[in-house]
């Protein structure tokens, strides 16, 4: 599919929201104008990012089965989207993620052990045991504190981008949402503000076809695509193969360039599939058959691997080495984090800390309440 100029008129980009931007073809070749021209090293890094995310998820699910954690959310099958966009953006940019963008943190080099500390709610949890597992936060790594309330982050991202523009900054914001949550009201507020103020923001919609038990149709309604929503605001909107690392990288880069060149917001619908359950509290067998096997877009890790093998950037030995490496990294991080206790094991930081950070300075009524708590 063609690649429009950064400042091409939105009407001319219009039809692309019904098609699918793709770079990797069925033979593992990178084809067409969207091919991002990454070096072999960059591509191997991308593959390693995705493998690390996958290994991380697998290890956490194992920890869940072992009763070490109470809750987890994997992103199986969706790894390319967050991993590639993270690499396409710059330090200083700010992502406003959902609970399914662990790839952003991992590809940014955020320490795995910190993530696991959070998931275990142990004595080293950077969030001090306050948040459900996977609700990470890291300003330093451009990862906004995840909210349990869907869609709120979408308009916050627009506000952050407006602030950057108002201050003459070059940093951009990237907003993330699942296709189901586009039904929420804050999605609309975000589009209105992004369109009116032409904020430097990427408006990502991860269409993984499911919102817990509800198929994407309920959020999409009669539209052909979610990208249509952007078009209704004259926000250039593309629909992209989200399981194609190269396409994700290229489109993210294009959208980021548009934002940085003051050409305003870009919406991207990433088409993918939630391969696993919604969360560890969910059992999809009650509402869907096993689609993963026959999903046409394939597995993002396999597809990038194939490309690297076909182009000779990778061989079997290196691939195996990578696999061993990520497993080792994850396991080492897990062991280290596990040594700091967990909420399941009853080893957490002092409950008195729950009164901190409600306000910048502890007010009297919270001081009095804290004094009633032991520990």
């Amino acid at each position, binding site marked *: 599919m063609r690649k429009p100029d950064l400042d091409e008129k939105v009407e001319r980009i219009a039809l692309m929201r019904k098609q699918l931007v793709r770079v990797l073809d069925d033979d593992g070749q990178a084809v067409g104008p969207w091919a991002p021209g990454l070096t072999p090293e960059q591509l191997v890094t991308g593959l390693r990012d995705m493998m690390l995310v996958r290994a991380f998820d697998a290890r956490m699910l194992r920890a869940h089965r072992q009763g070490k954690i109470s809750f987890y959310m994997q992103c199986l099958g969706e790894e390319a989207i967050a991993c590639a966009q993270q690499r396409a953006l710059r330090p200083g940019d700010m992502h406003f993620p959902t609970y399914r963008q662990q790839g952003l943190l991992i590809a940014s080099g955020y320490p795995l052990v910190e993530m696991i500390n959070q998931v275990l709610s142990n004595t080293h949890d950077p969030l*001090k045991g306050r948040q459900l597992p996977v*609700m990470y936060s890291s300003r330093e790594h451009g990862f906004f504190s995840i909210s*349990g309330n869907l869609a709120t982050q979408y308009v916050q991202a627009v506000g952050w981008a407006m602030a950057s523009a108002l201050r003459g900054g070059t940093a951009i914001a990237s907003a993330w949402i699942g296709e189901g949550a586009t039904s*929420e*009201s*804050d999605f609309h507020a975000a589009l209105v503000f992004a369109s009116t103020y032409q904020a430097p923001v990427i408006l990502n919609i991860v269409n993984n076809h499911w919102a817990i*038990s509800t198929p994407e149709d309920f959020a999409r309604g009669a539209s052909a695509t979610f990208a249509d929503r952007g078009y209704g605001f004259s926000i250039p909107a593309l629909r992209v193969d989200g399981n194609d690392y190269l396409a994700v990288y290229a489109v993210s880069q294009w959208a980021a360039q548009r934002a940085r060149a003051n050409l305003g917001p870009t919406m991207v619908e990433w088409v993918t599939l939630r391969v696993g359950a919604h969360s560890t509290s969910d059992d999809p067998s009650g509402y869907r058959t096993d689609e993963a096997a026959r999903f046409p877009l394939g597995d993002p890790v396999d597809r990038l691997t194939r490309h690297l093998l076909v182009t000779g950037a990778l061989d079997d030995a290196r691939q195996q080495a990578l696999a061993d490496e990520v497993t080792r990294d994850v396991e080492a991080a897990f062991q280290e984090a596990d040594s700091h206790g967990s909420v399941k094991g009853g080893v957490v930081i002092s*409950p008195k800390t729950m009164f901190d950070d409600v306000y910048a300075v502890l007010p009297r009524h919270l001081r009095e*309440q804290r004094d009633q708590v032991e520990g």
Partner: protein
Amino acid sequence: MTAMTMIEAIRDAHVVAMERDDRVVVFGEDVGYFGGVFRCTLGLQQRFGAHRCFDTPISEAGIVGAAVGMAAYGLRPCVEIQFADYMYPAYDQIVSEAARLRHRSAGDFTAPLTIRMPTGGGIFGGQTHSQSPEALFTHVAGLKTVVVSNPYDAKGLLLAAIEDDDPVIFLEPKRVYNGPFDGHHERPIVPWSKHPLGEVPEGHYTIELGTARVHRAGSDLTVLTYGTLVHVAQAAADETGIDAEIIDLRTLVPLDLDTVLASVIKTGRCLVVHEATLTSGYGAELSATVQERAFHHLEAPITRVCGWDTPYPHAHEWAYFPGPDRVGRAMQALMSA
């Protein structure tokens, strides 16, 4: 009579209501095909069809807004908000619309709808799966607010709510869905099948909104509470040996003031217990009202044992939750005050 969990009792109330009145429609996120994340609506779509029970987009404002329109048309929607923590996007439709429609139109349009939502903590849900926002409803004229504590009441109160001509907020503490949790999280859960309040009559019955239930008669002090904390208060009474009269309010607005005052006048001491954040919680209203009307009968200050004024913390859930120890200590302090 059949032994039922609270989930089964709620499901059964839906079935009875939908069979008796074809204006009753049920919808919400994951409510239709799948039967709800807590399975409270399981089987309704299969039994009554997708025009009576259906899934919705993830839009709490849309769910309640559409329900207001349907109720104005003449239907009786009973909708589910997946967790009470997610009711905020619907708050405008609840407060500005459902609650006021009858009054602002002088009865020309009404909004007889029921809004169910799971509340409360104790499942390690963190700050967005644990909230108890009842005080945000009790402050709003035009709403009735119900909190259930057991299967028997849940069925009778839900049927009454659906049949009520006013909008009813129906709060379901999720920690007691499967058994009368008494705050002893370290012990195995007792199932409803082993509890008398798990015995649920078949067919139709209602419990009048605005009537409290004396959960445990006693003479030492009065505990005003509702939801999960009813069972916690009972454990605290049992464990301290204090002869507490525990009142399960069931409906917060309208309040069964007669039952409340009769008890406080009898005991002279009053403890208010809830899981929601203390400041401006519904306990404040209870304390203020009891104090206004029974001042000269009070032998000690009315005490509140509530959630702390913090978000509900994930790892410190049990330090936050007002468990039997904290409630028991408050009882003892109140007896010696």
